């Protein structure tokens, strides 16, 4: 015990773990967190669960992809970084216009009527249908790849050469980019909500709508700013997910479940909760669907070496992981980890 050879083995186990569990889960968690933040903001301000959110992400990503293709054909690029970053502002702007349009045409009416949340829910399903149709009409239902630039920050080969270890660690550009972007976006969001007048007025509106009105906070302005932020969050989350994996409209619809689960686990309406929930879901999903054989082979003494793949659940059931966590939270603590309902 504790001799150099077993230390190396543990190090190898750790590297394999990071390569196949740690880094992918942090990346995926960041994407989910950004998506869940959008959901939770809508819940906190407009007070409904937005079923169109997954398709909003698809819409923003689609616009970003189209602009990216345009830039690529013009020969514009960001060198090692994906060209999509350059196209992102356009995607956000288009999504903002789309969301403000849906608010104007659909949600505002129910706001004035002070409709019950479930009516918004149905209306958001209608918006989901339309957004879904628009996306498929423009870009089709198929997979689209738009990643370019340098593929790796650190490749397995470089890592092995650097460390001399038998196991390698790869960090894809998109993974690094996702985490960095998520940190920057979340920092900006929290700065906005806690330090600026408009951000504080959003929190006030979310906390106590009647008192906010009494204080002269304009609800329409709060709602508009919310949609703008949601457009940015959804487009960024969608684009990062698309860069890291692939863009397919239906996949974005399916992201609704893990994103909702993340938001509910953290406490609907709580931004901090949405972030925590995103990472919890991502880690749980990856850990439960990962085949642990290799890690265990390194980590355990030779005689304990596992015979099977040691995979708890096949990756086809990754949605079941979010769902199970969601059910557990609903059964035990329906308000979520962080007290929800307010920003």
């Amino acid at each position, binding site marked *: 015990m504790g001799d150099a050879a077993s230390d190396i083995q543990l190090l190898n186990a750790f590297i394999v773990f990071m390569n196949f569990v740690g880094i992918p889960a942090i990346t995926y968690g960041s994407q989910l967190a950004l998506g869940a933040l959008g959901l939770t903001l809508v*819940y906190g301000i407009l007070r*409904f*669960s937005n*079923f169109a959110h997954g398709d909003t992400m698809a819409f923003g990503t689609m616009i970003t992809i189209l602009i990216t293709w345009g830039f690529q054909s013009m020969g514009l690029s960001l060198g090692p970084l994906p060209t999509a970053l350059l196209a992102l502002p356009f995607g956000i702007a288009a999504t903002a216009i789309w969301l403000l349009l849906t608010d104007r*045409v*659909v949600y505002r*009416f129910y706001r004035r009527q002070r409709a019950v*949340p*479930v*009516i918004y*829910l*149905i*209306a958001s*399903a*209608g*918006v*989901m*249908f*339309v*957004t*879904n*149709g*628009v996306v*498929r*009409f*423009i870009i*089709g*239902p198929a997979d689209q790849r738009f990643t370019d630039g340098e593929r790796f920050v650190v490749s397995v080969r470089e890592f092995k050469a650097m460390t001399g270890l038998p196991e390698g660690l790869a960090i894809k550009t998109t993974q690094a980019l996702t985490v960095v972007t998520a940190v920057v976006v979340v920092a900006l969001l929290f700065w906005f909500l806690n330090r600026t007048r408009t951000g504080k007025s959003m929190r006030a509106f979310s906390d106590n709508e009647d008192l906010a009105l009494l204080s002269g906070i304009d609800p329409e302005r709060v709602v508009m700013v919310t949609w703008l932020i949601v457009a940015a969050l959804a487009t960024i989350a969608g684009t990062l997910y698309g860069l890291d994996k692939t863009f397919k409209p239906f996949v974005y*619809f*399916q992201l*609704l*479940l893990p994103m*909702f*689960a993340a938001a*509910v686990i953290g406490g*609907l309406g709580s931004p901090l909760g949405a972030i925590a929930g995103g990472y919890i879901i991502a880690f749980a999903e990856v850990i439960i669907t990962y085949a642990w054989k290799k890690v265990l082979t390194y980590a355990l003494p030779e005689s304990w070496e596992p015979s*099977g793949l*040691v*995979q*708890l*659940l*096949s990756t*086809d*059931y990754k*949605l*079941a992981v*979010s*769902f199970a966590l*969601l*059910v557990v939270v*609903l*059964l035990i603590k*329906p308000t979520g980890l962080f007290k929800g309902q307010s920003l």
Partner: protein
Amino acid sequence: MSTRVQSSGAGAVRTLLMFIVVAGLIIGTGFVQSWNTALVILGLGLISSIMALGLNLQWGFAGLFNVGVMGFAALGGLAAVLVAMPPTPGAFAAGGPRVALALLLGAATVGAGLFVWRKLPSGALRALLVFVVVLVGLVLFRRVLDPGVAAIEAVNPASTGYLGGFGLPVLIAWPVGGLLAAGAAWLIGKTALGLRSDYLAIATLGIAEIIIAVLKNEDWLTRGVKNVVGIPRPVPYEIELQRDPAFVERAASYGLDPVMASTLSVKLLYAGLFAVVLLVLLVLSQRALNSPWGRMMRAIRDNETAAAAMGKDVTARHLQVFVLGSAIIGVAGAMLTTLDGQLTPGSYQPLRFTFLIWIMVIVGGSGNNFGSVLGGLLVWWLWVQVEPMGLWLMQVVTSGMADGSALKAHLLASAAYMRLMTMGVMLLIVLRFSPRGLLPER
């Protein structure tokens, strides 16, 4: 008093007129397109109506937001396979007991986890113990299950590779489908009812996705994406009819050739069967709506707080109606798979199976059973017809463009997605301008 009778009389006239319009649409389709198309629309429209009836029970009567229609319908489809398909020879012997044992182990794991949770005081120790129990259970479950599954799937994989069913008449699958769906609904209802309405929506969205994932991946049960085909029918095969001299003669007397006559007859028989089920469920739903139970449900829907204050157990009532509604959807799901003659897990899409049914209920008129039936038939007709209409529209729009232009090709290829947009726009318009639907609740 007199005004009430009058208004319900006017309601009846309106209902009748609306149904005549829908009948006209379907019959018109028969004349303009083909009787085959009209009967296909009718059959699926009737099934859609039953699903809408089930959803209306939940939403219209009780205000429950179920976004898992697809899952409950798919469970019905599974029932059709399990009941009607012949058992695969040797498959059960190969791995059946192992799979059964594994499923028992899985259930025992959940039970043990719950037991530990209930018996121990809350704290880190309890959480850790539950985690260990579930982890160990899951590992054991996989260890027992996997070889069994492999053995079953190795039995003649090209044509079977699954357990098969009980080889019983497929009609039995319809109530069985209802039971399966009811079981799943009970589990979900126990978890998510009594919380905010959003939570039921999210939970049902999740269970539906998971049911589909199971159907797609558990090949030993459903053959997964390889599909189960040739589910026995409750009605004769066309080919049998064509061989029957009496049938051919009768067809000739109507001036029909035997092939056409046999297709139409089979479809008519299906439609007749579906109509019988629909009528029975409609009568039952109507009686439920007007019974003390139905009045109480609506009272709870309209004012939950007041109903709770009057001593009604709101959550228990909701569970009842949620299970019942899901069971009806399960029955309809089994009927659908029966009509198709095959289970294709890949074909279950939430937009088609969940949200379209929602549109049917809302367009027809939430809370009105006749409205749901009308909405089912009407929206299904539209769903089928919008696609050719969209294509036609695109052909008109692009007629001026040069052949071979990329835009023209794209527009024509994308015309199919017009119907998603159309359905969404229709839902939004009805919700806003006529939220009570075509046939409002009295």
